[in-house]
Each structure stands twice: as structure tokens, then as C-alpha cells.
């Protein structure tokens, strides 16, 4: 039974990728013995004889003298069991096949006589030691998909590659760390620091419980519609029925600042209750005015305006106690802070030089400030160098409070809810829109009289809002 074996042009150890057939020593039908020279191939200006790898009968030659053949291409087929029935041989021989008889040199292969280099043959690179350069990979090998590929995250995080062994150490290690550190990559940690976000209390939604950029941004926004609360639900230890929350990060810093403020500056709070019905009517009218188109107008805007005007009348309220220099620094500008309560804690971004802004400009600034704070993008610079602050507890439906001074400031105004209230108006009981204002101040700088006069002045502007109206119409 014929048994056919192909023989492909081997890599002859010279970094060969192809070779040129110089001469065939056999033709189909010839009997050949093992190691009998069968073909001469050109490599790098020298001819190399290839000895037969098989004993048998040549059944076909697959290339002709003069052909350039790639390494790995079958050049000859042998029937190594020629006793069997003949099979049709593929005949590609050419009439130029030559047969050389005994050589001048001993029959040991590898010993060549004087070469006859082909004219115009290309210089090939010889590699002296080894089986030569392998062909490079051009396509990727298919991987086993152990888990479905995660979809690319819509918030811009890159799709995470499935964990491999080299990352497994990271994952396992990361899990051990989870109770010691919040897991977050350095850029996310920087973002958290910039936004004043405490990584420890964020539930990370990233792989292995890591905190992602969007987790931090969401946490910093806080308070606004639809934003999830990121403080974890109480996780009481069943044994003690207590939960211990570490004092870290922003909470710790805020607490320290508050303590410093509260126990350095003697706080006194004055209260006034004022009928702001006309002010609320003004708010409505301003909302309809073209100069306020597209911008939010709220009572807070007019309270802010009143505060700024009151500061003009009583500048000492807009100051700071410089203990090191033993001086009170009275500020000639108003950097108006608007306290924003977020689940992260209090942040107080301020509008720089608010006194120079027109009412529409002030409205725009306040709106921007609020939106930026909600998005978690308040820059540290926006929270620095405030001179006076308003805190609005009215949004929570609360009447009033005794706010703590923003450190470095002398006064803070607390605006309460505007409530329909029975009131004495022009000698009669009427339902009026009434609110409470509270002013806490540093008693070292502001004495009772000043504080009261300031507050009364401010309240008076809200009761009689025509005193606020002095902008230049477009």
C-alpha cells in the first residue's frame, strides 16, 4: 500500500524564509535511499545539498529549477512503501531537472564544493547559530471567555478587563485592605480630596469594591434631586447594638474647624421676625422681568442683597479677628458665602466681591454656585476667603437656628422658612408671609447694639423691599 510523505523545504539554519531550487538530483519514479542527495538549494551565495529524509520512490516534485520556494512548502513527495498499488503522481517536473552524478567532494552532506552562485542572487542574512528567525504572530490567539465581558460603563470609566492571575493577587490583596483603606486609584483619591469627599464612607461601585470617579462625584453633589444618599445605612453590631463610624476625612476636618470656631469666638445670636409679604411679591415680579430671564430668583437672592447693603452700612460685621497680629481686619469687599448642606457635610462656597454685582449678576452667580456645588465641582478656591455667610434652613421648613460662624468670619445670617402666619398688619389681623432671621456674630468684634442694629437694618430692607431696588435697568 503506497504511503506518501511530503517533505517541505526546511529552515536550513540561516534565518531562511525561502530558497531557490538550483538543481534536482532525482525525478519521479527514481528509487532513493536515506540521505541520498535529492536537491540543491541556494542560500546566501552557497549551494546546500539536501539529503533525502526517506528511503523509497520519488512520486512527485512540487517545484522546478529556478523556483523560489518558501520554507515550509512541500517540495517533494515520496512513496515510502512503494510495494503497494501505484497512485497517480502529481507531475510538476520540468524538462530542466538535471541529475548530477558523483561529486568532486565526499558524499557527506554538508560539504560543498565550489559554489556556483546565481548571478544577481540576493544577499541573505546568515545566522550562525540556531534555527533562525521564526515568523512573527500576526493575529491574537482566542482566549477562553471565563466571564461575560462587562459593558463599557456609561459614565466614561473604561471597560474593565476580566481579572487574570496577575491581577488576582491584587484583588485578594485589595479585599484584605478594604477594611483598612478605601480602595481607590490615585486620580480618584485626588478628586475626592479636592471635593472634600470622605472616601471611607462612600460605598464603592467599582470592581472589588473600589470607589470610582463617578462615586466620588455623586457623593460630592449630595442633597439635589435624585442623588442617592451615600452615607451607609447604620450597621449595628448585633452584640452591642452600636455602630462605630471612624472620625476621618472631611468630617474630621469640619468638626475641628467648627470646634475652633465655636470655642474661640464667643457666639451671640440675635433673632428677628419679619413680615416679608412685599418681598415675596417682588420676587414674583422679578421672575417675570426680562433681565432675570433664565435665572433663578428666590427669596435667598433678596436676602443676600439685603445683607450686602447692610454690610455697607455696618462694615464692622464683615471682618475677621486676626489673633496673631492682634488686629481686626475689616474687609472692604464682600465674599458672600452660601452654606450648602450636603450629605458629606457643610460646604460654604462663596461669591467673590458680591457687592460689585448687579442684582441679575448676583442671581446668576448664586445659581451657578448652587449648581456647581450640587455637581460636586466646587473648587477649593471657591471655599476660601469668605467674609460673611448666609445659611438657609428655610428649605428644610425650619424656622430658625443658632448658626456657628464660618471660621475666619464675624457674622452668619440664618434664613428660615417663609410661612403664612397670622400677623398684625395695619392694625388688623391678617395672614402675612412671615419669616425669622437669626444673626450669630463674634461678640469680640460685634457688640449687642451693633448686632441688633445690623439685623434690624437688614430685616427692614426685607420688610420694605423698595430699599433694595437700585439696579440699572438694561
Amino acid at each position: 500500500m503506497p504511503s506518501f510523505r511530503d517533505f517541505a523545504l526546511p529552515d536550513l539554519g540561516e534565518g531562511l524564509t525561502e530558497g531557490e531550487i538550483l538543481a534536482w538530483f532525482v525525478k519521479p519514479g527514481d528509487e532513493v535511499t536515506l540521505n541520498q542527495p535529492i536537491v540543491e538549494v541556494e542560500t546566501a551565495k552557497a549551494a546546500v545539498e539536501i539529503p533525502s529524509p526517506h528511503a523509497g520512490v520519488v512520486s512527485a516534485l512540487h517545484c522546478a529549477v529556478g523556483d523560489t520556494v518558501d520554507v515550509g512548502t512541500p517540495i517533494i513527495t515520496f512513496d515510502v512503501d512503494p510495494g503497494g498499488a501505484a497512485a497517480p503522481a502529481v507531475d510538476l517536473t520540468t524538462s530542466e531537472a538535471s541529475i548530477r552524478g558523483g561529486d568532486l567532494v565526499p558524499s557527506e552532506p554538508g560539504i560543498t564544493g565550489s559554489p556556483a552562485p546565481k548571478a544577481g542572487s540576493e544577499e541573505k542574512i546568515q545566522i550562525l547559530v540556531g534555527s533562525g528567525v521564526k515568523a512573527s504572530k500576526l493575529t491574537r490567539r482566542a482566549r477562553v471567555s471565563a466571564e461575560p465581558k462587562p459593558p463599557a460603563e456609561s459614565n466614561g470609566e473604561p471597560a474593565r478587563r476580566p481579572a487574570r492571575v496577575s491581577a488576582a493577587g491584587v484583588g485578594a490583596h485589595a479585599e484584605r485592605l478594604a477594611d483598612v483603606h478605601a480602595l481607590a486609584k490615585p486620580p480618584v483619591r485626588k478628586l475626592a480630596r479636592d471635593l472634600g469627599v470622605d472616601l471611607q464612607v462612600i460605598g464603592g461601585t467599582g470592581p472589588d469594591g473600589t470607589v470610582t470617579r463617578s462615586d466620588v462625584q455623586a457623593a460630592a453633589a449630595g442633597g439635589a434631586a435624585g442623588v442617592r444618599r451615600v452615607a451607609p445605612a447604620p450597621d449595628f453590631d448585633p452584640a452591642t447594638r452600636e455602630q462605630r463610624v471612624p472620625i476621618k476625612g472631611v468630617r474630621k476636618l469640619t468638626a475641628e474647624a467648627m470646634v475652633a470656631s465655636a470655642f474661640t469666638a464667643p457666639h451671640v445670636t440675635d433673632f428677628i421676625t419679619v413680615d416679608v409679604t412685599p418681598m415675596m411679591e417682588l420676587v414674583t415680579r422679578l421672575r417675570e422681568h426680562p433681565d432675570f430671564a433664565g435665572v433663578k430668583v428666590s427669596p435667598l437672592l433678596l436676602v443676600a442683597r439685603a445683607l450686602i447693603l447692610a454690610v455697607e452700612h455696618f462694615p464692622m460685621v464683615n471682618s475677621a479677628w486676626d489673633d496673631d497680629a492682634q488686629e481686626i481686619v475689616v474687609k472692604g469687599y464682600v465674599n458672600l458665602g452660601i452654606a450648602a448642606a450636603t450629605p458629606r457635610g457643610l460646604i460654604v462656597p462663596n461669591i467673590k466681591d458680591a457687592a460689585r454685582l448687579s442684582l441679575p449678576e448676583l442671581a446668576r452667580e448664586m445659581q451657578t454656585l448652587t449648581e456647581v456645588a450640587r455637581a460636586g465641582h466646587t473648587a477649593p478656591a471657591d471655599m476660601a476667603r469668605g467674609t460673611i455667610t448666609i445659611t438657609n434652613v428655610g428649605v428644610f421648613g425650619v424656622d430658625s437656628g443658632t448658626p456657628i460662624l464660618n471660621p475666619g468670619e464675624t457674622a452668619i445670617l440664618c434664613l428660615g422658612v417663609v410661612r403664612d402666619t397670622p400677623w398684625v398688619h395695619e392694625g388688623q389681623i391678617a395672614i402675612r408671609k412671615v419669616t425669622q432671621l437669626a444673626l450669630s456674630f463674634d461678640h469680640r468684634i460685634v457688640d449687642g447694639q451693633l448686632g441688633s442694629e445690623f439685623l434690624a437694618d437688614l430685616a427692614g430692607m426685607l420688610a420694605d423691599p423698595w430699599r433694595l431696588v437700585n439696579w440699572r435697568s438694561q
Partner: protein
Amino acid sequence: MATITLGKAINEGLRKAMEDDPKVVIMGEDVGRLGGVFRVTDALQKDFGEDRVIDTPLAESGIIGTAIGLAIRGFRPVCEIQFDGFVFPAFDQIVSQVAHMHYRSAGNVKVPITIRIPYGGGIGAVEHHSESPESYFTHTPGLKVVTCSNPADAYSMIRQSIACDDPVIFFEPKRRYWDKAEVDLTAELSPLWKARVAREGSLATVITYGPSVRTCLEAAAAAETEGQDIEVIDLRALSPIDWDTVFASVSKTGHVVVVAEAPVFGSLAGEIAARISERCFYSLEAPVLRVGGYSTPYPTSRVEEDYLPDLDRILDAVDRSLAF
């Protein structure tokens, strides 16, 4: 217990190794009659004879090459290369032969050779006597590399290196040869392949080895007076490295500085930094910083103290790490 120098501790370790195993031979230039240029092999030839403590020809490649032949014959050679800068003539025998022989022979040939090399600077020497070539050898698979920093470790580690069936490059911090400490020669030997927490701390991790360990401990002591609590890790084994001890410390502090005399570029310190970044990514509050030699040949002795990592440079790096 005895208070002995680091050099003497090695001497004691060599002596014990020679006593325990008759196949141990010591060979190198001037190791016999002179007892070594640093006296580390002092009195050994007198007690063990010229056949076991061999004054060799002045030929480093020959020292290592013949040691290989001795190892094939069943001996356990301890070679001395007189100074770090003179290891290079032997470099080929070390990396092409010593490092490869077990692998080449599919495990049939063991090469239990110890190659002792005094290294490092700070001794006011001329060229080639202050090098830190350890990175060439940690970079060579098939070798193991260790370095001691104190007398107790010197004693314990030389004995274990000689007993190890693999080739060990044993780096001796020459400027610490005269450091003294109490050494219990009868104590159990501490494991060769484990790093040592030389000083506990929680603020920052300083990873170091060899001559720099003492410098780092001095820096940590100075930092303590300023309220900084620094942990110092003495690696001891440079290849393979005890990563568990390193990672535990990094997880604790989050701030890492690697200190070694060798030029930083392309050094072992770079591998340590890279591996920590990969494995402790979420622990790091700052990138891993490296303090070491500049990318210059080792400078002339009058300015070497400005080249070598010293207390101020180490603490400066700690400060920079903390500032991130």
C-alpha cells in the same frame, strides 16, 4: 554572647562552616596567609591548611571557573572576590556558567558555590573599590543574592549561604565591617530568605539593605525626634525577595522610600518600586520613591558623601512622599 565586628562575625561563620563540612574550601586572593585584605578570613589557613584555604593566582575568572570544577568534583567552594569593582573579569563565569549549570544539566549538576564580595562605598577609596553591582546579579536567573547589614546577620547568613545548594552571591557591606554588636554564636539561625523589620513605624516604610540599613535607622531615629514614625525594612535577601514582609509594611503605611547606594537608574530599587506599585496599588498614598546613587560612575572620595544616600536625603524623600 560576644561583642564582635561584622567582619569577625563572618570569620566565625566561615570557621563554623569549615568545621561542619570538610568539603568546604575557601579560595581567593590573599585569603590564606594574609587572612584577607579585610581580615575576614584571618587565621583560617593556619587552622584548616593550605588545601582548604587557597591563596589563588590573581585571576578572578580563574577563581570562579576552578570553583565550578571543584563543585562538580563534590566540593563546596567559598570564593572571595577582593573588591566589588573586580568582580567583572569573573562576570562571564558567574552569569554564563555558575548561573546556568543546574539548568543546563536539567538538575544533574549542583553548584553550591558561595561568592563573597565586599561592596559599597563610604570608605574613602580609589576607583573600583566602592561599587554596588548587586543589580547585575539579581538580574541573573539561576543565582541567589543576599546581603547582611549587621554582625548577627553576617554570622547567620554566611553559614546558610554556604549550606545552600544553589550559588549564592554574598555581598558584604565593607564600610560596616567594623560595626560591632552582640552576637550569640549558638543561637538558631534566622531564616535566610526573610526580610527583617529593623525598626517598626507607621508613617512611612523605608526599604533598604546592606550598608544603607544603618543609615536608614539613623535617619529614622532623627525623624522620631520630629514626631515622624518611620518603619525600616532590611531586605537581607535580594533575590529572591521576601515580598510578604514588604507588602505588609506598605499596606500599613502607604508611603514607601527605597534606599540603596547603587545608581538608581536600572537598579534593583526600580524592580522593588514597580512590584509594590503593582501589588499594593490601593495602599499607596504616594508613588514609591527611590534614593540612591546618581547616574555617574562612583565619584572621587572627597565628594562621595554627596553621592551616597545619607540621613538628609532619606528624610527628604520621606517628606516628599508624605507631601503627596
